[in-house]
């Protein structure tokens, strides 16, 4: 089984971090690292990371902490306002649904054409077998398809519009 750790690994790492590697360490440890793949890798990688980190940190310019705090506050306020507006949007959707239902009910109650068509449909539906549906669908197929599309598409469109506003 291949070794994945070495007992001297920590010593090598400490020497690298304390900038003692390789000159200011026990010669035995140095000798060991020449023959131990793990310790040699630790010295190479830790040394590379240590140097790169110091160079990067010296060159990095991060935004001022006050600016980050201020931006976070602004964003928290914006998010809170958005969250506060969400129930209003939900209420608007419910109101829209009620309005559509009310409009439909009024239309159904006042339109003689609709009532006649509905009555005929109900009368024919009473003793109707499934085969009787076929000519009805053939005659009003386009209308039925349009109504079905509206029933399916309107909620989807509404959902997508409202969903986009909330993102």
């Amino acid at each position, binding site marked *: 089984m291949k070794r994945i750790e070495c007992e001297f690994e920590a010593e090598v790492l400490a020497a690298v971090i304390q900038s003692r590697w390789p000159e200011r360490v026990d010669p035995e440890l140095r000798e060991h690292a020449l023959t131990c793949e793990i310790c040699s890798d630790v010295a*190479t990688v830790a040394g*590379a990371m240590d*140097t*790169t*980190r110091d*160079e990067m940190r010296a060159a*990095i310019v991060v935004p001022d902490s*006050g600016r980050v705090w201020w931006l*976070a506050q602004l964003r*928290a306020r914006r998010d809170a306002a958005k969250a506060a507006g969400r129930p209003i949007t939900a209420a608007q959707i419910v109101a829209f649904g009620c309005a559509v239902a009310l409009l439909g009910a009024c239309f159904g109650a006042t339109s003689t054409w609709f009532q006649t068509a509905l009555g005929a449909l109900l009368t024919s539906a009473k003793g109707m077998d499934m085969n009787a549906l076929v000519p009805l669908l053939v005659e009003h197929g386009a209308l039925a398809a349009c109504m079905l599309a509206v029933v399916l598409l309107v909620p989807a469109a509404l959902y997508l519009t409202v969903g986009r506003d909330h993102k």
Partner: protein
Amino acid sequence: MFRDVTFNDVSRVDTLHDACAGFVMDEDTFRAFYDRTARGVWAYLARVTGDRQAADDLLQETYYRFLRAAATHDSEDHRRNSLYRIATNLARDVRRRSLLRPTDLVGHDIERVTGDDRTSAAEHSTDVTRAMARLKPRERAILWLAYAEGNSHREIAEVLGLQPSSMKILLFRARRKLAELLSPGSKS
């Protein structure tokens, strides 16, 4: 001249006040914590994403999410680990999005951090950057946390959301890979 304040306005002001009160720390504590950690977090983000611009963008986002997280921290280390965990998740999200936009995250962008001068230190840094760019993002994160940040196996596992028991082997493999890439005969 003056508009009457409505009930809606009052409740909105309360909501906004509550939004800032929801931060996990006050301004002074945050600023001190930010000054201690921001450079390290930026370097980590730059290393893991391989993109300086992404690191700039994600730094602000990391601290914002940290402030909004409803978490309690037992110690400074725990707080720091939470911060790095948020940074890790954000970097992962950027990487996922970049799969759809292959022109992003070329992996060599952070070479610009060390400037264009061809000194031996800058060349060394460039070599390390190029070698790191050939590792998997998780390997980069593991190596950076272990050797640049000095985290223990348990802390690295916590930040990356991995099992502590698997850290030894993951660290060994990532280290081996980078050491090979950094060796003089490598074509990195």
